[in-house]
């Protein structure tokens, strides 16, 4: 079979719209992930054991089940369980975000372990209230030290967005499926799709590496 990229290329407009959609979903999901991850980190360091237990169980569940199953649960099971009827877009973004949150929590825990315990004690000794200790003293330092890893986490999020095509989100993968069903040219369409994903992920992970190198340079 001969490849006919020239015939496909003028019709790739939906792919680029899908790409923008993928990036949009990725950014929102990553923000959700950072919020969930921070909450989990603080829950893990709570004094009440049941709060710690919930955070640990959540992390273990998310890391022990496939992202696809989590997305299906969010899409199919949330509405009948809670009565909240969210559309596929919200369900998808939430599922990816909550998935990412568990991993962000692990990353943040790694960052937190590098911060000396004395900082908590010093902040408490200065009479700072609990929330100020976290938000003004500890978390800024944690985030500063894990920025490169968070950038990498963003590529991970981009790499699980194709799963959202199962719940009818028209992101890059779904757009390419529609395009090759229409044109009967899966080889060309899928290689272009793969190329787009490669460029996005490679650019971001390369950026992450640059940040990592720089942060190593400025660290004693």
């Amino acid at each position, binding site marked *: *079979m001969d490849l006919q990229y020239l015939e496909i290329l003028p019709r790739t407009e939906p792919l680029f719209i899908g790409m923008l959609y993928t990036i949009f979903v990725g950014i929102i999901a990553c923000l959700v992930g950072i919020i969930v991850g921070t909450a989990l980190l603080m829950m893990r360091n709570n004094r009440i054991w049941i709060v710690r237990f919930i955070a640990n169980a959540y992390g*273990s*569940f998310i*890391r*022990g*089940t*496939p*992202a*696809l*199953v*989590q997305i*299906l*649960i969010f899409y*199919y*099971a949330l509405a*009948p*369980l809670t009565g909240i009827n969210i559309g596929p877009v919200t369900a998808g973004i939430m599922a990816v975000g909550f*998935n990412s949150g568990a*991993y962000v929590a*692990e*990353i943040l*825990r*790694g960052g937190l372990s590098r911060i000396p315990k004395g900082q908590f004690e010093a902040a408490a000794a200065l009479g700072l209230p609990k929330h100020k200790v976290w938000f003004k003293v500890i978390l800024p330092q944690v985030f500063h030290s894990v920025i490169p*890893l968070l950038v990498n986490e963003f*590529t*991970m999020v*981009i*790499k*699980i*967005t*194709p*799963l959202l*095509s*199962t719940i009818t989100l028209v992101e890059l*993968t779904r757009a390419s*499926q529609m395009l*090759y069903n229409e044109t009967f040219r*899966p*080889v060309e369409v*899928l*290689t272009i*799709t*793969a190329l787009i*994903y*490669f460029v996005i*992920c*490679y650019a971001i*992970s390369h950026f992450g590496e640059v940040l990592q190198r720089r942060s190593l340079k400025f660290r004693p």
Partner: protein
Amino acid sequence: MEFDFLAIWDHRDILIAGVLTTLLISLISIPIAIILGAGTCLLRISPKRTMRWPAVAYIELMRNIPLLILIFMVFYALPFYGIRISGFTTGIICLSAYGAAYFAEIFRGGVEAVPKGQFEASRALGLKYGFYMRRVIFPQLYSYVFPPGSNIALTMIKESSLLSMITVTELTYAASDINGRTFAPVETFATIALIYWGISTLFLKLAGSTQARLGAHDSNSAIALR
């Protein structure tokens, strides 16, 4: 609302077959990925540029393209070239090719952690490349490679759920099947989530006890990938 777990129980044979297929796919593709990964790692650390670059290209490609796209490419594009393979075979090929890239990076990290002096000492003793790699360097890698390696293996078990999209009858496909018959999505997906969770927990327990026996370093491997 009411839960109808009896409906799931009635279809337990589909679920059991799904679990077995998932485990079978993982059991075949994880060893292939480890072997391929070790081979790719040898190419990757080779001093010759012509051997190193294909390995770099392969690793970067696999790490930056979503697995689902890779599966679609193999499943939908290869038949155009007259190669017809079943979904099951496609799954094993894709999963092992995907895992191999990550294993290669892990092995490389391990080899780089071995002090340079050992390579020089081996060469000074007149050992051949193949011999000292096999008998001196690789045996030391277990402790470095094991924690992240088990993580990748677990990831591969989880990623096998993507094969439901190309109609491989593994656990997730079984769930969609049951969901289509019973219209009980909550129970069905909760059940398979619990099964996956059980498999992962069991796997991590096993890996943990093996790791303790090997005396492996506990790096923060949990953030490697999913």
